[in-house]
């Protein structure tokens, strides 16, 4: 579904991502792992087009993503739940959700109802400013917002951060369900092994901006964990 090859990224002069070659297979959930500051978020932002690439290519369903601006990627069906939630703080919950409607291929005028089923809090808080929500509520809103655009590829950057345990659990289920129901492909950035193991099909491990290992989830050995995920 998404093929990344030879990707290099710089913040000013500091080389953050080094010659990444990653493949995200269709219909599966790929978990991106690594310690703090290895470049996971940076990679996601590159995929979303929020950061300029130094070199490399991104091919999404055969299309060259790198040549498209960020706002042209969402309509292709890429939904993004960024790290740190990035709610529009002064828009109401409803407005936060509506923003994505314009990018839907079917031009729907209504927020899909299943989102409220997934996150009932959002329904209760429809008229409240996004910025006023509690951290966990905001995180739920962020996921809901990404779903509004009816994505084919969903990028989740640490989506469970700050969410209460029962909902975390539920989010795991939701992800799996969406993948089967909507034939969704998911890229998940996650630090928490149990969750990652439960939800993801595949993993890739980054360290200092380089791809260190990848494979099917069961292949994630304690060795790898020790080497790349512990300090």
């Amino acid at each position, binding site marked *: 579904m998404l093929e990344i090859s030879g990707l290099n990224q710089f913040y000013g002069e500091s080389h953050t991502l080094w010659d990444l070659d990653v493949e995200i297979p269709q219909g599966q959930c790929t978990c991106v792992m690594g310690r703090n500051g290895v470049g996971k978020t940076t990679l996601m932002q590159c995929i979303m087009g929020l950061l300029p690439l130094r070199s490399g290519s991104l091919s999404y369903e055969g299309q060259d993503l790198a040549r498209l601006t960020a*706002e042209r990627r969402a309509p292709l069906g890429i939904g993004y739940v960024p790290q740190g939630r*990035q709610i529009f703080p002064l828009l109401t919950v409803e407005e936060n959700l509506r923003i994505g409607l314009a990018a839907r291929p079917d031009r729907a005028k209504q927020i899909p109802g299943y989102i409220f089923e997934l996150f009932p809090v959002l329904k209760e808080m429809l008229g409240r400013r996004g910025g006023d929500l509690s951290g966990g509520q905001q995180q739920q809103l962020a996921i809901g917002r990404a779903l509004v655009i009816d994505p084919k590829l969903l990028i989740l950057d640490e989506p469970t951060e700050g969410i209460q345990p029962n909902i975390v659990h539920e989010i795991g289920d939701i992800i799996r369900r969406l993948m089967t129901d909507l034939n969704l492909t998911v890229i998940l950035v996650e630090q928490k092994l149990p969750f990652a193991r439960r939800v993801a099909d595949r993993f890739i491990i980054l360290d200092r901006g380089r791809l260190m290992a990848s494979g099917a989830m069961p292949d994630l050995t304690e060795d790898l964990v020790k080497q790349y995920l512990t300090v």
Partner: protein
Amino acid sequence: MPMNPTCRSRRFPHLGGLGLVFGVLILMMLPLGSMADEIDAALIDLSDRSFEVKQAAVDVIAAGGDPRAGTLLEALLGGNLYARESDRRPVLVAPSPGGYRLTDALDGSDLGEVERGAVKKITINNRMRNQLRTAIAALTLASPDPEIRLKAAQQMLGDANPIVVEAIRDQLGREDDQRVRDYLDLSLALASLRDEAPAARLAAVNALSGSLYPAARNALTKLLSDEPDPEVRAAAERSLAAIEQKLKLNAAAETLFFGLSLGSVLVLAAIGLAITFGVMGVINMAHGELIMIGAYTTYLVQQAMPGFLDYSLFVAIPAAFVVAGLLGVLIERSVIRFLYGRPLETLLATFGISLILQQLVRTTISAQNVAVQNPSWMSGALQINPALALTYNRLYILIFALMVFVALLLILKRTALGLQVRAVAQNRAMARSMGVRSARVDALTFGLGAGVAGVAGVALSQLTNVGPNMGQAYIIDSFMVVVFGGVGNLWGTLVAGLTLGVANKLMEPWAGAVLAKILVLVFIILFIQKRPRGLFPQRGRAADG
């Protein structure tokens, strides 16, 4: 030389009018023929250099009783009367291919075509204008057209001459138009104040109670100063008190209107900024110049359609919106789009743009102000009562400001653009990730703000100067209004503008214009201490960081 000596009175020029009416009424009874020569001479005198000679001539012509004298005098008053250079005969002119086509002013006969230099306009002065109006009034009080009679009655209001009073009484007997009757009644009451009989005076005093005509108040005040009869005095005092009371109420209403009207100007000037600055966060120092561009568009539109002044504004409003809006888009695409996320630098760049635009107007049009005309429906006033009139231009601008406000509110609250622009302003990267085409949204929004500024320029051109500096006059106030109202809140801008306008006007009578302004500024500074984020603050967790 004038035949009526009172005309030359220096101390009491208005007696010129009086004497004239006197003359008219007397001479109406004389046989017409004996006057003919004198009138002929008077017609020649109209083009004399001396205004005294002219005035005397007008007296003669008016007294001549010629049925066409009214038309001639009207033409003179309207500045349409010319004198033929060859024989100084007064003529009416109509432009024609070769110059002017002349008609005799008195008998209406066609005098052929001449070149432009062959006739000279007959100028009149202030005093003559007064004289002419009174003369025309006297000639037209009995006119069949009630509108003309009404004008005449208004003109004669308060005239104390007994013969005039007689004529008024006469007319009242057969007058059937209520508005005219009111004026005539009032005139008679004013006249009766001077009656010998206290009872008559008393009746007149009571009739005048609460009348808002300045003439009534003045007459009562004057009466009080020398009225011997205690009963009449008491009544006059009462009447006067009633008048004062009503005047006060009217004055309060007037002040409120002035305040709202000033406020609406502030709102109009600021509302475009409420978008470019309030919503988008661009510190747009060129906002004033966008207003200026709108005003110049009005000017150019009027130049382009000289015959259709009354419709010009309807063309100018969309034109200004488009011109200023496109300019806004141009500014946004060429400069501002590189500066998002660096709001303070937009200040710098737009300040530079404002300098360039000012100078551009100076070099391409002129450094002087240009004359933007008021369509006829924008001039004059809606007379609520004799003491309270709402000027049309202010009234329309107030309404217009509210319309613009509502339109913008709908755009921002009800359209996708409104939502998207707010999203982009709050978090550009995230908005783009959601598929919002931020470049388009920015350009459209800035264009909208600029276009609204242009539209404001159309309105302001009706009130004030149109010149290269006009933008500078509004920029400070506009920022003040937007900030005072609370950045990002359109309602805030409306309420802030109107509040500041009314506050200013409430203070102006006792503090004077300058001090009032200073006090309003101090008030704003102190008020902000209580509400550090304006009247309608952005609230919630996000706002207080």
